[in-house]
């Protein structure tokens, strides 16, 4: 039964990770760079949500929506001012710029909020008990459902809508998409919005589920990078599966490993994947 608990923890963490990693991978595919600032966008979502919920006493759902909107606007502003002007320089310059953005966000949030971890003081969620063990709480169910719903919605967006198809066209060949009359700038903005909304949502969920601490962004980006590699950096569905697996593997490792090694488990997995199967578990994208 304890094992089932670990499994549930893993599934929940994996769900949150999924929301973060999917957006990261979409940016990787269409904008062609590793966005190191993605973890900080999650932190931003968490801290905005905290601000609207705790000091401003708004309803939790309203606070979450406002946090997502605010984070998305900030992210789009960074995109317009910082990323787009140097797009032509290529992926490596964008990667380092995103490191700069990550430090700006991290530094600004630490300067304003200080180092103290914050918590959303929500009512303790109802627990479902099986055989004397609290197996899953309503909050955990909510997180899993939100992640699953987002994944399904994203799937239909990418396969059924014109805009979604344009996104896929652009991610497989930027110039061909442009030649065929796709407004690459507009599509790129849509991808950024999707990615930012998911990141902020993940951040808010992380804040409600655990605590908001200022190093969260860096911790998350490491897991996101790992999950992205495990799933194949470009493939959206591979990445979804990989995030869940990664979350579960990390929590279940507690059974036979020192809990302090939880995140190291993620890195050991990706080291093995990179050495033995560098194209990721579900293939996809350019190998190596």
């Amino acid at each position: 039964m304890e094992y089932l608990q670990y499994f549930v923890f893993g599934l929940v963490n994996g769900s949150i990770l999924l929301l973060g990693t999917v957006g990261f991978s979409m940016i990787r595919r269409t904008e062609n760079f590793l966005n190191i600032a993605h973890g900080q966008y999650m932190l931003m979502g968490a801290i905005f949500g905290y601000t609207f919920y705790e000091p401003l006493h708004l309803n939790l759902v309203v606070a979450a929506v406002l946090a997502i909107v605010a984070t998305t606007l900030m992210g789009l502003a960074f995109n317009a001012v910082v990323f787009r002007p140097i797009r032509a320089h290529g992926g490596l310059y964008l990667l380092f710029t995103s490191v700069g953005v990550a430090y700006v966000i991290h530094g600004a949030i630490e300067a304003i909020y200080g180092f103290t971890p914050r918590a959303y003081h929500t009512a303790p969620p109802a627990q479902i008990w099986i055989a004397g063990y609290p197996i899953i709480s309503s909050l955990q169910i909510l997180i899993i459902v939100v992640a699953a719903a987002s994944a399904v919605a994203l799937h239909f967006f990418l396969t059924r809508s014109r805009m979604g198809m344009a996104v896929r066209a652009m991610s497989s060949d930027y110039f061909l998409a442009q030649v065929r009359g796709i407004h690459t700038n507009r599509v790129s903005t849509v991808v950024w919005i999707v990615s930012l909304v998911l990141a902020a949502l993940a951040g808010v969920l992380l804040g409600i589920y655990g605590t908001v601490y200022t190093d969260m962004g860096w911790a998350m980006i490491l897991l996101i990078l790992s999950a992205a590699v495990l799933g194949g950096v470009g493939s959206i569905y591979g990445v979804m599966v990989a995030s869940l697996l990664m979350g579960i593997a990390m929590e279940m490792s507690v059974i036979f490993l020192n809990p302090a090694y939880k995140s190291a488990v993620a890195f050991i997995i990706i080291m093995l994947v990179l050495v033995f199967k560098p194209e990721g578990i579900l293939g996809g994208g350019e190998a190596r």
Partner: protein
Amino acid sequence: MNLGVFISGVVIVVAIYAIQTLSLNLKFGETGLIDLGLVGYFAVGAYAFALVTVPPPGATDNYAIGLGWPLWAGFLIAPVVAGIFSLLVGLPALRLRGDYLAIATYAFAEVVRAIFTNETKLANGVVGFTNLRQPWRDSFESGVRYQYFFMGLVLVVLLLLFLGLKRFRLGPFGRSIRSIRENEPVALSVGKDVVRMKLKSFVLGGVLAGLSACFYVTFQSLIVPRSFVPEMTWMVWIALTIGGTGNYLGAIVGTTVLVGAQEATRLIPSSPSTAPAIAASRLLIMGIILILIIRFRPRGILPERPWIDRSPVPAGGSVPQAVPSAAEVAEVAAKQGRSTDTIVD
């Protein structure tokens, strides 16, 4: 605060980081390897140094090994250990390219930190080691004088490494690794052992990181796993990007600008209420400098200069414009009294 002490302290930190930036310039600037695990080799070097030089564990200590050897042994062994660790990382990781190499090396460094943090037997866990010995400390009465001496020591080492690497750059090894960076298939097609060259550059970079770590540990006189966070890796990358990728002097200039700007914030008088904001401003400064440099001077303050062949043109002869024919090569070879294959090489 004594300004001389402050400045010499900053110079020492700059020089220690600059050694790492030089090592990154060798790996990335020259060879084109995107290594995000710099802090890993540094940590391995630092701990190797500590374990070689700390006294054997007493009854109350948790760590298992302490050789208690003299400091010079630490300075010799730590870079070697860091180099061996680089080799172990490089053998599997260098098969990967671009983003994947970046992520793999990042992961290695995090695993290293997790091990040093949690394996108390190996490296005393989160407590680390304190009160480490410093070279020639006993010859100086005052701490201030010793700090000036230490500054001179680090600067001399930095200068030697700088000159050595500059020299290296012009030699066959330097030209080979740059050819790999520019166009790997071409390098391969002219018979360069690409894998071996990459590995050499990678391991040499690791050795330099280990050497830098020795100075770091002796200067701080303490070592805790908390120091070896990815932020250190990013610092070095940012310093190189600011200074100019591919230019060793740029690497030093970039480190000076970045570390100098950060350390300058220590001069701001702080109170307990403003201290967190000032600490956070160091991150902000780092981010803003990086963004601005990439935006307005993407090749850095001192961009890489293209390599120019300065060998004298023989009197009356002209610089060959196209690939010389076999006959021409043979003719030149005959003039210089060499066999043809050495010229083609």
